[in-house]
């Protein structure tokens, strides 16, 4: 009975004030749905796995990752995520979190970095990299992004990243900016953050890694960017490539001050 009254109200209001009302109520319902999912994020499962992997003696060298330097010194995890990607002296290049984790797995544990980089997302050691990244990110939850820009290569990476962000291509002429260059836009029902500036706490760069409910997978930033390019109808960007690190620097520097909410839960 109550329901019928409500549906009538929808019809009447729909006539009197056009589409806006119905649209808003759909948006509110989606918000409600997202709130229901927030408590009990399966990302927790990957976070726990990542923490165990960090401490476990693994690989040909039977070593843990506890001496891995994520930029704040060997073994310092808290706060590392919100300062990545950054320049690393030992390799002479800018690395993002996942490239750095693979680097540590190679140097400390004796894994083959090239082989891990070739492994599809969600499989074998690549799945472990994602779990590790999820845990490392979770250790910085609530901290504000503050990527270093002191080194020339970090500045170069920002400039290269900016060019990648605006690069139109593929069969559809899309660039990252086609969807993420303006405020208040939506693709289907998904809100699109404007990534040319700080889009706010826990939005955009500050929201990944994230658990994707659509396929039940944990998505790292590398996979997030990889799938953006897939949907842009671009060719395939290599895991850990300088291009993806540079793009991440552009997004991360723009997000300066945004508090990290990672790992989050997404559609």
């Amino acid at each position: 009975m109550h329901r019928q009254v409500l549906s009538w109200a929808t019809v009447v209001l729909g006539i009197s004030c056009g589409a806006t009302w119905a649209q808003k109520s759909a948006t509110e319902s989606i918000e409600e749905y997202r709130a229901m999912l927030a408590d009990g994020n399966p990302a927790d499962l990957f976070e726990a796995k990542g923490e165990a992997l960090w401490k476990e003696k693994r690989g040909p060298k039977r070593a843990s990752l506890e001496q891995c330097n994520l930029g704040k010194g060997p073994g310092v995890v808290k706060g590392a995520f919100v300062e990545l990607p950054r320049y690393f002296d030992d390799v002479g290049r800018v690395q993002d979190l996942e490239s750095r984790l693979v680097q540590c797995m190679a140097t400390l544990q004796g894994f083959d970095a090239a082989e891990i980089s070739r492994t599809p997302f969600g499989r074998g050691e690549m799945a472990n990299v994602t779990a590790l990244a999820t845990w490392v990110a979770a250790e910085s939850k609530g901290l504000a992004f503050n990527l270093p820009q002191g080194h020339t290569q970090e500045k170069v990476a920002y400039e290269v990243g900016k060019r990648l962000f605006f690069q139109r291509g593929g069969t559809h002429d899309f660039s990252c900016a086609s969807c993420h260059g303006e405020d208040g836009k939506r693709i289907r029902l998904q809100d699109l953050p404007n990534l040319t500036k700080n889009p706010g706490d826990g939005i955009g760069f500050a929201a990944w890694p994230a658990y994707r409910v659509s396929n039940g997978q944990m998505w790292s930033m590398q996979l997030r960017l990889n799938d953006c390019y897939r949907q842009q109808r671009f060719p395939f960007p290599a895991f850990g490539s300088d291009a993806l690190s540079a793009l991440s620097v552009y997004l991360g520097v723009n997000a300066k001050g945004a508090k990290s909410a990672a790992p989050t839960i997404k559609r």
Partner: protein
Amino acid sequence: MNNRRETLKQGMTLAGLLASTGLFPQFAWAYNKTAFDAKSVADVAKAFGVSAPVASKDVTITGPDIAENGAVVPLGVSTSMAGVKHLLILVEKNPSALVAMFNVSDAVESSFSTRAKMGQSSDVYAVAITSDGKALFAKKEVKVTLGGCGG
């Protein structure tokens, strides 16, 4: 009047769903739910009397009005009644309707939440099966939207 007929029709639909799980043979008479159209529902229900599943304010279904993704739809079932043996969650339009059955004990509250897959927009039911074999239910509609970019 319409409203009552609607409720009875839902009861029939649900009886079919319950029977299809194979767990509750007492509802098997309604297994072929297509046999009942809206017009004859009232008569059929009268013939079967109280054993038809009935809507009840004492049973609650919780869930979103719109699910952004059918792969994960948060659903909850609860009841304030005593003498309930099982609490069920069903999604009418799923290939097999029964999502989960919780056995109620004195040691837990009669309230459970989980998450279900839904292939399409559908009515979802919370059903309480009492120790004397009756089925009481609540239902709500959950719309499943098409996701982001892809197909």
